[in-house]
């Protein structure tokens, strides 16, 4: 009877960048969706805490705002903007796919057995989402550093 040890890849199966080369941009989108989701949740918790300083008066509010008004603060916020745009865009792509759109038509497979669901439409959406995230980051930095 085979032993169960080492049966699953574990976190290596999630975080190994070599997987993206082997399995394509969809795998990168899957990984980024997780990472941006966790990042946004962490940011959200910090944001709720930070905005609660409004209850402590103007002096405390202004002091807490100083942290975000630094170069590092602006860069961090730009990253948050990028994460938000990517997570949203990719989330919409996934919801549309789960409704059955853009997957291709089920039909008798033939050599070379290329999967219909992994198509240019999906890849284009992922690249477009990455592009929009970069654009949003650039716009955010333009506003913040103005």
């Amino acid at each position, binding site marked *: 009877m085979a032993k169960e040890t080492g049966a699953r*890849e574990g976190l290596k199966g999630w975080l190994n960048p070599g997987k993206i080369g082997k399995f394509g941009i969809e795998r990168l989108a*899957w990984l980024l969706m997780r990472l941006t989701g966790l990042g946004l949740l962490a940011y959200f918790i910090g944001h709720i805490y930070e905005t609660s300083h409004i209850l402590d008066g103007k002096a405390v509010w202004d002091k807490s705002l100083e942290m975000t008004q630094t170069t590092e603060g602006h860069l961090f916020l730009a990253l948050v903007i990028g994460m938000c745009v990517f997570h949203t865009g990719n989330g919409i792509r996934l919801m549309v796919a789960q409704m*059955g759109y853009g*997957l291709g038509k089920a039909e008798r497979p*033939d050599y070379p057995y290329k999967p219909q669901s992994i198509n240019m439409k999906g890849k284009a959406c992922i690249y477009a989402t990455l592009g929009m995230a970069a654009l949003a980051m650039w716009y955010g930095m333009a506003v913040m550093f103005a």
Partner: protein
Amino acid sequence: MATLHPKLSEELSQTTVSSTQSIKLKIKRSNPNVNSDEKYDEFVVPIEKWTTVLDALLDVKSHLDHSVGIRYSCRQASCGSCGMKINGKPGLACFTKISELNSDTITIEPMDNYPVVRDLAVNFDRMINNHKKVMPYVIREDSEIDAESGVREFLQSPENVEKYIQFSSCIKCGLCNSACPTMAMDKSFVGPQALAQAYRYIADTRDQGKNKRLKIIDESHGIWRCHFAGSCSQVCPKGVDPAMGIQLLRGYLLGIRD
């Protein structure tokens, strides 16, 4: 640590090799029933333009090291026995030509996410159990064909067949489960193979077990732990496209499909 394995005998290859090409095979060796040691053995084998990974492995077994443990059968991508990780990507050894890998060294390892039996052979119990869980057969109350019931055959139009025939091509090779990122961590996940087969039967107009199967997969380690990474479809050797089946299956649970 990799070791170059010396030729065990001076016997000639049974086939006359005209090619001067050869490649290095790096095969992962392990025997979990004995100990947890793992190592890579290297073998140099001659190849032709048409040599598959399985051909090269059988060459190693025949002439260099008889003890290499591999599972194979049909040699024509019909049985699904020879699934393994080839240069980091799951694939059927009989269906992967060495010339298409564009590499002088071919690293061959057992499939991920399965317990290893020995060397390149893995245990399929979990996949088979998950497959059985989704009831992979036509469920129908009036399945008894007799003179009284008047039922002679269950008719299907060609259009109805096209809806599920793709997913019936599954040869249970397990490559999809090996590639799936959720399977890498979640030992309770049903897996893309079982989910695609669930869709195959639900989409079959002869089947009446849709609600039973949907109830089985609508749980915390069922269909909802798929996030459309698409790796399963990337590696499927028969064009089953499990990712498509799973997304279409979700439509039933989201109330978009009847």
